[in-house]
């Protein structure tokens, strides 16, 4: 089974030349970066400054940044192994034990194969299916509070002897629309249902279901290293009444501290959720979450507390792995169609939310066990996102709140790496629940604050619309 790649022997992504001079004009002002073939990288290619990797294969998301060498590579590999290796139910295995009893995935990599978006059974089997499923369903009451017997996430997997909390199913209704030039497109709207509740059945009218497919794990370290002052400025500037755009930050309060949320579909996370993931997604307990995720459920008697199943040190290696993944370079940046598409991206005002260029802060970020990563500091990056919440209209309203984010508010998805999703994960499912089956559908789902951009795109010629897609494929 493939567990990881790139041992400590190899690091071929880029060569960095530090130019100690005034007036150097690469994006990261003191660096010129060489590609594997020795050519100077075009600044537009450098998605994440010194963390850019020149890779367009299935491993494009799953390659260490060029600065990961020596003992850092050891930590990267250790984290990669913990990310990919399946956990097993054996409670005594100090390395891989602790799965379940309730879980969603059997490893981080089961949902994020090659750090991408594994194809969930939501699409192949219409819901939870017969085995591992690969999607998340958040559930709550209509008033936003949680069900005591179920909690926040529906765990549709369980080790033998325990019942899954329930099974998700989806049905879709399809409507066909037309561009002004006559080309047709269609959008499918899902309706979700949960059956086979392990305990109290919940009536559909009492229930909110918000389904998510896995996110691309691209630029995770950079997202954690974003300059908070720049984000605050963005939130202040994100007020374009002529386009109906007004972004806002999600503020996360954890352990009596407030943070700007940047991670997750609703910017509801201020860290990479490694501890939460091991606990809620895999059922692996830790110092942070010492109780099994199903603790308190009647069927969990006997499974409720096996002690700590993963150490903070090990989880920090996963945090390190995620933070030190390289971000794939843009491709074909000088291609005429790509450039045309980029122009059209601006003409449609997409860049007002999908902001091309941001910066990371000067202070090194700290991982969950205190390790600091200075390599992520002071970088000019091109995430194509503002990490703010925007009203995306009633069609995308899941009614599920996350912190300050209402059901209809979603974080602008950073687009870096999106052009390689099909290569890495084999599909072009987009948006939080993958309802958009391709780039065009994803754009046409934009409503609310995205409505003006959608309309500007809609009125373009087919050639111009296709160019936008070609541009997106270069990211």
């Amino acid at each position, binding site marked *: *089974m*493939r*567990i*990881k*790649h*790139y*041992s*400590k*022997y*190899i690091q*071929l992504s880029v*060569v960095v*030349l*530090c*130019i100690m*001079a005034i*007036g*150097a*004009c*690469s994006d990261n002002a003191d660096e*010129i970066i060489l*590609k*594997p*073939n*020795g*050519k*100077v990288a*075009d*600044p537009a*290619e450098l998605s994440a400054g010194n963390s850019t990797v020149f*890779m*367009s*294969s*299935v*491993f494009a998301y799953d390659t260490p940044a060029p600065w990961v060498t020596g003992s850092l590579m050891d930590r990267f590999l250790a984290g990669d*192994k913990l990310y990919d290796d*399946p956990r097993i*139910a*054996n*409670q005594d295995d100090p*390395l*891989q034990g602790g*799965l379940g009893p309730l879980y969603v995935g*059997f490893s981080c990599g*089961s949902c994020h*194969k*090659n750090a991408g978006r594994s*194809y969930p059974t939501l699409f*192949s089997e219409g819901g939870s299916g017969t*085995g591992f499923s690969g999607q998340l369903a958040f559930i709550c009451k209509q008033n936003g509070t949680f069900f005591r017997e179920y909690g926040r996430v529906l765990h549709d*997997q369980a080790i*033998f*002897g325990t019942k899954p909390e329930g099974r998700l199913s989806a049905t879709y209704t399809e409507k066909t629309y037309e561009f002004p030039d006559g080309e047709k497109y269609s959008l499918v709207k899902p309706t979700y249902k949960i059956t086979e509740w392990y305990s109290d059945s919940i009536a559909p009218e009492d229930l909110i279901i918000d389904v998510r497919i896995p996110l691309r794990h691209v630029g995770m370290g950079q997202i954690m290293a974003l300059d908070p002052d720049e984000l605050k400025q963005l939130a202040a500037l994100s007020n374009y009444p002529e386009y109906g755009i007004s972004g806002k930050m999600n503020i996360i309060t954890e352990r009596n501290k407030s943070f700007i949320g940047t991670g997750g579909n609703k910017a509801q996370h201020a860290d990479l959720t490694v501890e939460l993931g091991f606990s809620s997604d895999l059922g692996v307990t830790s110092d942070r979450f010492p109780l099994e995720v199903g603790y308190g459920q009647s069927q969990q008697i006997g499974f409720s507390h096996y002690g700590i199943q993963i150490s903070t040190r090990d989880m920090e290696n996963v945090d390190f792995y995620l933070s030190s993944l390289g971000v794939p370079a843009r*491709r*074909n*940046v*000088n291609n005429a169609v790509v450039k045309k598409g980029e122009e059209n991206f601006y003409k449609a005002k997409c860049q007002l939310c999908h902001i091309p260029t941001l910066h990371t802060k000067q202070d090194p970020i700290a991982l969950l066990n205190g390790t600091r990563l200075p390599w992520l500091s002071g970088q000019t990056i091109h995430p194509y996102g503002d990490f703010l919440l925007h009203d995306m209209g009633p069609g995308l309203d899941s009614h599920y709140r996350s912190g300050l984010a209402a059901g209809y508010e979603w974080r602008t998805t950073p687009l870096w790496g999106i052009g390689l999703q*099909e*290569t890495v994960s084999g*599909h072009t499912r987009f948006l939080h629940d993958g309802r958009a089956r391709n780039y065009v559908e994803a754009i046409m789902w934009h409503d609310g604050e995205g409505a003006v951009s959608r309309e500007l795109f809609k009125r373009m010629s087919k050639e111009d619309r296709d160019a936008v897609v070609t541009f997106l494929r270069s990211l």
Partner: protein
Amino acid sequence: MNKSKFFLGMAVVFTAVGFTACDKSGTEGTEDGYGYDFKAVINTYVDDVVLNTYTDMKDKATILYEAVEVYKANPSVGLTNVCAAWRTMRIPWEQSEGFLFGPAALLSLDPSLDSWPLDKTQLQSIIDSNIEISLDAIASSNVHGFHTIEYLIFKDGEPRTTALTDRELKYLIAATEYLRNDTYLLWANWVGASNITDTKVLAAFKENETDVKYNFSEQFKKAGAAGSIFLSESDAIDQIIDGCIDIASEVGAQKIGGPNATAKQGNLEQAVLDVESWYSWNSTDDYANNIISIRNSYFGGRGKTAATASANSISAFVKSKNAGLNIEVGTAIETAYEAIKAMTYPFRNNLTGAKVDAAIDACGDLELTLAKIKTLKD
């Protein structure tokens, strides 16, 4: 660890003083390719390496399934033939690990076929229970694949001599059918739904209502054309090279290096548990076949070597650009293969020592050497 290799592999940081400006107008275009017509190379790779390997694996999966059927009908024949069929099927699987992209990754068939470590706790719980053992039951437990079967049929590297219990046998039958179906799916998603003629595959797909989603051969063969995920033929070649680098890394750093490191830390019991295929003692053959996967990919056909390389191979391309590098790659492949074969058998009982270190280093060398191919881009 060979320090010199390590430092060779590091990103290089130069400090230059005195630059005052950069001319952005001078930046290069980004459609970096190898400047080579790879059409025949890609076709040969798909047909003679990938499809050849997966077709063999599909046929061997049928043989394993049928061997279990024979055992089921008459357990007194013992497990020798089943174990032999398992080892024989293991060969094409390990020889496919140089291309664990495409359906193996996209349909999560790699973990389904070859999940490690084995979840013995759940396996035993199911066997000890009274639930009906079915494909659905083992699907929902995620306990299936080569190593589940291996655990049931081998004991200390030899065919198990004690008879399977009724429920163990039921699990073996279900797991073998599951493995066979996964293998059919893997093969079918490379050849495409419309090209399936194997009646046993068609029957299994009909029975299980299996859909074939991809024709991944076409993705490669149409590289650079509309409809392919590969924007250029060079991108497809990079994928092949990355697949080889990936498995060279996994063999050296993980499959051998992982247990080796754990053993060196003094935790021998855990180190043995980390050794994949240790129930059958097949580990060394697994690793050697992984290197053969690289050899086949590089020289353009199953069983090809430096002496018999296809004219339509990555080797031929490298030779045309840099004959010395072609020799270097060939030597690195053979050195890694020989170093692995030279490790003392069985690996699970010999996790440390100079021979193991040499194998780890040789795999590291192979990674570095394969990566040099990318420097041949224009």
